[in-house]
C-alpha cells in the first residue's frame, strides 16, 4: 500500500478544521490526536489550511467512450478527468461499441478502469440488447459478473416501450438493481434539436418539448409503484419533471433523480449562434427551468448531481448543428458549477454538496465504500477543495481527449486541490499523480 498521509487543518464539510490521518486505504485517525497516531510518524504531511474536505465525488453518469470511440475518450483519459475533477468513482454508460450489454463487455470496462487505477469505474449495463429497446439484455449475468453491475440504462435512448420498461423494473428486483431511465418520448422528439420554445421557433431548429420528458417520468413512476421496484431518472431538465418527481416522492415512489451541472447553469438561448458545443440531450432549457432545478436540488426532490460527461471528437462538433452529436464535457467542471450555482447563492452548504455529489450517488449506485462519512475507520476516499480559488475553463487544458466544454472561457469558483482514492493521491494541484499499476 501507499504511505500514510496526514492532512492538517482541512475543514470537513466546510465546518471546523481538523487533522486526518490516511493509512492502508482508510481514515485511521481524525481529530487533534491524528498527528500523534503511530502511523503518523512517517506520514507525508499535507497542509490543508483553508481547504474544504469532502468525501470523494461519485458520478452516476459518465461516458467514457471505450470501447469504440477511443478518438473521443478512453477509460484512461476519462479516469484522469474524473480524478482531476475530484471524483473517486464513476459509473460508465453502456452506449459504447460494442454496447455494454453482456457480462463480457462490462467486465472489460471494469478491468480497464481498475488497471488505470485513478478512479473506481463501475460499468452501467444496457437494459436492452444493443440499446435497441426490443428485448432485455442479460441483466443478471452483468449483475453477477466481476463488474457487479447494479445500474442499468439505455442512456442516449429511452426505454420507451411501456411493457419492456415494466419488465426491466421488475426483473432487476432480484439483485437489487435500478433502472436509470433516459426519459425521452421518441415520437414527440423526432428530429429534435433543442428545447422547444421561443428560441427554437426563431432559430428554425426542431423543438424538443418538455412534455416528452415529463410524460415518460410520470409513466415510469407509476410503473415503479405498480411493480414495487426502484427508478432513477437521468438528467432531469424541466420544471414540469420536478413537479412529477416531487408528487411521486410524496406518495412514496422509490424514485431518485439527477440533474447535470449544465442544466443548472446554461439556458436554451446558448443555441443562438448555432455552436453545437451547446447541443446536448436533453437540451438546455429556460431560466425558469433552471430556477426549479436548483430549488429541487436544494430541497432534495432531485437527489444528485451527475455530469453526463459526454466527450465528442471535433469532427462531431464542428459541423452543422443538426448533424452534430449532442453532449458536453463535465467531469472537471462539475464541482465548480455546483459551487457557483448552489453553494454561493446559499441553496446548498458543503454538507449538501457531499450529499448530492457523493453520498446519494453512491447509495443509488449500490456502492458501500464510497460516499462515506469523513470519520475514523472509513475508506479514505476524499477530495480537498479550495473554495476561494477561481479558474478559467479552457477546453484544450482539460484531461479529456475531447474539448467540448460549454464553459469555455468562463471563470468558475472553487478548485480541486487533491483527490485521494483509498488513501492514495490520484490528483494534486491540477496534475495527475501516478497510476496504481
Amino acid at each position: 500500500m501507499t504511505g500514510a498521509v496526514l492532512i492538517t487543518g482541512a475543514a470537513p464539510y466546510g465546518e471546523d478544521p481538523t487533522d486526518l490521518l490516511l493509512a492502508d486505504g482508510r481514515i485511521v485517525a481524525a481529530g487533534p490526536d491524528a498527528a500523534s497516531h503511530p502511523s503518523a510518524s512517517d506520514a507525508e504531511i499535507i497542509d490543508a489550511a483553508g481547504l474544504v474536505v469532502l468525501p470523494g465525488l461519485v458520478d452516476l453518469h459518465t461516458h467514457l467512450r471505450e470501447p469504440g470511440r477511443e478518438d473521443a475518450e478512453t477509460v484512461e483519459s476519462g479516469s484522469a478527468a474524473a480524478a482531476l475533477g475530484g471524483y473517486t468513482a464513476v459509473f460508465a454508460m453502456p452506449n459504447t461499441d460494442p454496447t455494454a450489454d453482456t457480462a463480457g463487455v462490462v467486465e472489460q470496462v471494469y478491468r480497464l478502469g481498475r488497471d488505470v487505477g485513478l478512479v473506481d469505474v463501475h460499468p452501467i449495463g444496457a437494459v436492452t440488447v444493443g440499446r435497441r429497446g426490443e428485448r432485455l439484455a442479460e441483466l443478471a449475468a452483468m449483475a453477477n459478473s466481476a463488474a457487479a453491475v447494479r445500474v442499468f440504462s439505455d442512456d442516449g435512448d429511452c426505454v420507451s416501450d411501456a411493457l419492456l420498461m415494466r419488465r426491466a423494473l421488475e426483473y432487476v428486483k432480484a439483485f437489487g438493481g435500478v433502472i436509470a431511465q433516459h426519459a425521452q418520448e421518441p415520437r414527440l422528439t423526432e428530429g429534435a434539436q433543442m428545447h422547444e420554445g421561443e428560441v427554437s421557433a426563431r432559430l428554425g431548429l426542431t423543438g424538443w418539448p418538455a412534455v416528452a420528458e415529463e410524460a415518460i417520468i410520470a409513466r415510469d413512476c407509476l410503473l415503479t409503484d405498480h411493480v414495487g421496484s426502484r427508478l432513477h431518472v437521468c438528467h432531469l431538465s424541466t420544471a414540469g419533471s420536478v413537479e412529477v418527481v416531487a408528487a411521486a416522492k410524496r406518495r412514496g415512489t422509490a424514485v431518485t433523480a439527477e440533474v447535470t451541472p449544465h442544466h443548472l447553469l446554461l439556458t436554451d438561448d446558448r443555441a443562438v449562434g448555432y455552436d453545437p458545443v451547446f447541443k446536448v440531450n436533453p437540451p438546455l432549457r429556460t431560466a425558469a427551468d433552471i430556477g426549479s432545478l436548483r430549488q429541487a436540488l436544494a430541497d432534495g426532490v432531485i437527489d444528485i448531481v451527475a455530469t453526463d460527461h459526454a466527450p465528442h471528437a471535433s469532427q462531431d462538433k464542428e459541423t452543422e448543428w443538426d448533424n452534430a452529436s449532442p453532449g458536453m464535457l463535465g467531469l472537471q467542471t462539475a464541482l465548480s458549477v455546483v459551487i457557483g450555482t448552489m453553494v454561493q447563492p446559499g441553496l446548498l452548504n458543503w454538507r449538501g454538496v457531499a450529499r448530492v455529489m457523493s453520498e446519494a450517488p453512491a447509495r443509488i449506485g449500490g456502492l458501500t465504500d464510497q460516499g462515506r462519512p469523513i470519520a475514523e475507520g472509513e475508506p479514505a476516499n476524499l477530495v480537498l477543495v479550495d473554495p476561494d480559488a477561481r479558474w478559467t475553463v479552457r477546453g484544450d487544458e482539460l484531461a479529456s481527449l475531447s474539448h467540448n466544454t460549454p464553459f469555455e472561457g468562463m471563470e468558475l469558483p472553487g478548485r480541486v486541490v487533491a483527490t485521494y482514492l483509498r488513501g492514495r493521491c490520484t490528483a494534486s494541484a491540477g496534475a495527475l499523480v501516478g497510476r496504481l499499476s
Partner: protein
Amino acid sequence: MTTSVRRPDRVNLFSGGVDPAPAHDSGSTGSPAASNAAELSHDGAAGAHRGGPVRMPRHLLSAADLDLATAEHVLSTAERIEQAIAGREVRKLPTLRGRTVVNLFFEDSTRTRLSFELAAKRLSADVITFSAKGSSVSKGETLKDTAWTLQAMGADAVVCRHSSSGAPQQLSGWVDGHVINAGDGTHEHPTQALLDAFTLRRHIGGLTGRRIVLVGDVLHSRVARSNVLLLSTLGADVTLVAPPTLLPVGVGSWPAAVSYDLDTALAGADAVMMLRVQTERMSGAFFPTAREYSRSYGLDIRRRALIAPHGIVLHPGPMNRGMEITPQVADGPGSVIVEQVANGVTVRMAVLYLLLSGEISQAQDAPARHRTVGGPA
C-alpha cells in the same frame, strides 16, 4: 422577435482579431466602389432613411440583421440598380469586377441558385458555383473543413444554401468573406424577404400599416421567418394563418398576429403570401389530407376576392398548384408570382453590391459592423 441570431462573440479564426476589416482592399487603381459611384449615384441621402443611419451588416444571415433604415436602403438601391440597367443594351454593371462570389449550394434550389448567379454576373463578379447535395458530413468532412477550403480560395462572398438551420452563420465565423444566407433549413431566407418587400412596395407603396397575410407551413418555412422580421421592421401588420400544427410553439413572441381562419384574415388585406406546403408534411400527420388542407387554407377565386381591390398575391415558389393555390389565382389578376422571380435578381444584386463594395461601411462609422440587434446576452 427583434433579436439577431448573430453570435456576438465570435472570434475570426483566420485573422486573430475580432471583427477584422474586410479582407479585400480596394486596390490602387481605383476601387470598384468608387468607379461605380456614378453608376449607382445616391439620392444624396444614404443616411437619411427612416429610422436612423444605414448600418449594413458584415453578413446577411437573418432579416433581423437589417434595421429599418438599412432595409430601406437595400430596397432603394435595388430600385436604382433596376433603373441603371433598364436603359442599357448590355445589362451589366462593372461594379464587382475582380471579386469572387462563391455559390455554395448544399441543397437543390435551381431558382435561388440561378438568381444569385445572374445577380453576381450582372455585377461583373467572378462566380463559381458549388453544388453538393446533403451535408458536408455525408462527404466525410465537417462544415469547418468546407469553410477552410473556401477561405483558401479567397472568396469575397459566399452565398450559402443549406438544409441545416444555422449553417451560413457557422460559416461566417470561419471565413473572412461576406456570407449571404440563401436559405438555411427551416430558419431564414432573407433575400427572399427582401425581394418580396421590393415587390410589395412596387405594387402597394409604402408598407407602414399595410396588412399582409402569410398563409401555410409557418413551422417549417424560412420564407415566413424572414418575412415576418423584415415586413414588421418595415412597418407592416403581418398576420400568419396556418393550421395550429404548422405554427411553431413560441410563435406568440413574433411580431405578427396569428389566426387559424383564412377568410377572416384575408378580409381587406393588402397582400396575401402563400407558402409552399412540402410534400413530406402531407404524410407527416400535420393535417389529415391535402384536400382538407386545401379547403381550409388554400387560396381560390372566392378567397382571392376577399382581399382589398388593390391587393396582390405572392408565392415564393415553387407552387403546388391546386394545393395551396389554384391556377386561376396564381395566373390571375393581382398575381405577382412571376415578377417576384425577376425582382429576386435585382434585390440580390443590391445585397451583393452593398456587402462587397463596402460602400456603407466606409461611409458610416465603424461600429456599424459591430452591431448586434439585441440578442440574448
